[in-house]
């Protein structure tokens, strides 16, 4: 749906985007991830024909952004970083105006307007002036504006920036709900967002693509298969014994002692490559008559993968995957 080959955008003094290539399949939902100033917005502006590229080629829905911008514009919905709203208009009038300039057939303007207002949960403020709306509503009106003509491709530039946590979750749900019928590319510098919403991720830093992968694979890139085990033996066995028992479990490559609470023994257990010793470890502990208090897998968070890729110092300790899924750290 989106093909980008060797795309560059140079300004007089700096290079915003430097020879990037990627492609997005139809129906996919892709996170465009990078620190501020990485070139996300510039790339999106090129894809929406707002900026011409200095070099390279980009096609959206089969049309070249430079040669056939008019056809590209028909097939995209775009939500810029600041939603492009006219403060003096009511939500309804504004959306009807956008429907008109996006070539929605005359007879369908009202129906489409009502539909997207329902879908983006702004129907309750339809007659309010946009200038009176809260930030969350504005963002949703911006999203409604982007999907009003049912475009094949949706380009969303930081769709959740500046929203409160509840609104962020709602907006993410909304975006997830749009996937499938639309191909979505959304930019963000917030990692949990990519994990929560996207299937694939393109990481960009200083104008260059540093990784393109599925969220799952990227997360498992390093540190896959490490387990953290907490055992209570109620005095039957000491740490030494438990350690030895764990080392004997098939599929375990290494066991490390970790400091833990007084009555508990804590270990980090590495599996052999390509195996997961999780079940066997649990069975071994229970069969020995000890209590298995906690067993969790310690995949590296996307955050660390990201920091590693963009070349900053990664966080010191691996965070259990459960913490990442909760969506922390803005």
């Amino acid at each position, binding site marked *: 749906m989106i093909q980008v080959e060797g795309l560059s955008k140079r300004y007089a003094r700096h290079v915003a985007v430097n020879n990037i290539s990627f492609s997005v399949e139809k129906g996919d939902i892709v996170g465009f991830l990078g620190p501020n100033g990485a070139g996300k917005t510039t790339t999106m502006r090129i894809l929406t024909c707002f900026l011409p590229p200095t070099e390279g080629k980009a096609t959206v829905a089969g049309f070249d952004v430079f040669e056939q911008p008019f056809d590209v514009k028909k097939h995209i919905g775009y939500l810029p970083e600041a939603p492009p709203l006219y403060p003096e208009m009511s939500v309804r009038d504004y959306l009807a105006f956008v429907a008109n*300039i996006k070539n929605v057939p005359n007879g369908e303007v009202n129906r489409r307007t009502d539909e997207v207002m329902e879908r983006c949960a702004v129907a309750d403020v339809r007659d309010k002036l946009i200038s009176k709306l809260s930030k969350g509503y504005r963002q949703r009106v911006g999203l409604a504006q982007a999907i009003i003509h049912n475009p094949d491709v949706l380009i969303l530039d930081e769709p959740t920036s500046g929203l409160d946590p509840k609104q962020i979750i709602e907006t993410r749900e909304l975006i997830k709900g749009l996937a499938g019928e639309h191909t979505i590319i959304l930019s963000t510098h917030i990692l949990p967002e990519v994990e929560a919403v996207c299937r694939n991720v393109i990481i960009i830093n200083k104008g260059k693509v540093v990784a393109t992968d599925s969220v799952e694979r990227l997360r498992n890139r390093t540190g896959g298969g490490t387990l953290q085990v907490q055992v209570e033996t109620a005095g039957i066995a000491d740490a030494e014994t438990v350690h030895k028992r764990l080392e004997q479990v098939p599929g375990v490559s290494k066991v490390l002692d970790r400091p833990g609470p007084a009555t508990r023994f804590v270990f980090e257990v590495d599996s052999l490559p390509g195996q997961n010793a999780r079940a066997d470890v649990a069975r071994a502990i229970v069969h020995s008559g000890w209590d298995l208090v906690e067993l969790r897998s310690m995949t590296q968070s996307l955050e660390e993968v990201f920091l590693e890729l963009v070349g900053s110092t990664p966080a010191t300790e691996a965070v259990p995957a459960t913490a990442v899924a909760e969506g922390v750290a803005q």
Partner: protein
Amino acid sequence: MRNIWTICRRELYAYFVSPIAWVLLAIFAVLSGYFTFLISSEFVRAGFESQLQGQSFPMNLNEQVIAPLFSNAAVISLFLIPLISMRLFAEEKRQGTIELLVTSPVHEAEIIIGKWLSAVLMFCALLAVLAIDYSFLFFYGKPDWKPVATGFLGMVLQAGCLLALGTFISTLTKNQIVAGAVGFALALLLYILNWTTSFGNSDTVQFLNYVSIVSHLDSFTRGVIDTKDILYYCSMIFLGLFLTSRSLESLRWRA
């Protein structure tokens, strides 16, 4: 065509829900009303005087009231036109809504013409106030309607030029005040260019006189439609809108 009308309608809406339209209408109503009162009282006084002296001066409502009123209205609009055109693109740039327009399947020309047309229609609303002033002259006297009609045509064409240039200036900045000030300076310059006629009759002076915007309005207010003037106005409108389109295009390359 549909896109032009959609954009034009939104712009008109923006004028009339904001105070701009109403403030401009109020200013124009007060000033043009004052001039109407002044000029028609002078006309009436001159009429009485000629009767008292027993001689009859040739009295003509068209020449002595309507034509000077048009010239005065032209001066007032000189001040007001930059206020109409200054927001057209500057506001969109500041709000970021220009991104919506430019990434929509709308031709650049449709955006520009739609916006310019809305500004012209906004100016026509001001002229409606002038038409009300004139209606009193028709009520109490019998002026010839044809010079009035051509006068209005001339006013609209002249405003069309200044608005087209103002639209161009509005694409150059995010700041409406700057757009307004520069627009006013340009309008004033075009207005006073023909003052150079006092320096003689060289080619340069004739050229400046031709470029000056007022010298073309006079014939309209006297009821004369000259192709030379029409050509001047149309080419100025085209120039303004063409510069606007170039400027919008370059905006994309510079941004």
